């Protein structure tokens, strides 16, 4: 029962946030002036076919590189901050 309740809480929060985003975007009419594409058809401006046509998963590599850079930058920033903190007198740090 409590799991159901938790799922409900997550879904309600997600719906509220989604509703806010939807309202903010002010959806309902096309701002592009283009007609809606026919069901299942790729849009005319699509360079590639919607079916997988790339053999090397370059997108996966790209994602891994970007995530690693973000993580590395985060760690470097964290280290820089803790180096600054370690300059504070040891007596202020508990257990030292």
């Amino acid at each position: 029962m409590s799991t159901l309740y938790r799922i409900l809480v997550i879904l309600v929060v997600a719906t509220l946030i989604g509703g806010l985003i939807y309202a903010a975007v002010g959806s309902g009419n096309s701002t592009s002036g283009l007609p809606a594409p026919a069901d299942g058809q790729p849009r005319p401006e699509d360079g590639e076919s919607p079916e997988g046509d790339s053999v090397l998963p370059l997108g996966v590599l790209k994602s891994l590189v970007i995530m690693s850079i973000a993580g590395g930058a985060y760690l470097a920033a964290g280290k820089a901050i803790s180096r600054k903190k370690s300059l504070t007198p040891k007596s202020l740090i508990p257990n030292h």
Partner: protein
Amino acid sequence: MSKQNVTKYLLDISTFVGFLIVMDPRTSGLAIHEWLAVALGGAVLVHLLLNWNWIVEITKRLFTKGLNGTRANYILNWLLFIDGILIMLSGIMISEAVIPALGLTLPVNMVWRSLHDLSANISLILMGLHITQHWSWIVSTTKRLLGRGETKRTPALAMDDRQVKA
């Protein structure tokens, strides 16, 4: 290792692999992209249920002193959640497989397409930070699953069965 940690670990690894596939729709094709992304939504829901105690505890103690790092992590998790909602919503609004398969048509608004692209790019950065935040847990759990981390109990391992970390 507790059963819940094994479940967490397997779910997290599969979600991550799923995320990488979804981030590359040109390789997978649009239909796989959309259906897998919908399934990922379910996986994230379970991920949140498995980390429920942390969410509740930190929400309660958010304004107490000495929670700086945890507070930053808490905000990061919220950003990840909000960005996830934006990706799913914008994805649904531009869907060419899932929504037509359900016999539905949605109003066309090209803003959703740019938002989908933008939120997916932001998610890469946020996911990089989220994984970095939990890197020691991932490494120690991998070692234990491979049977290589039994003898030496590092602080990360000692915290392994915790429900809540501050």
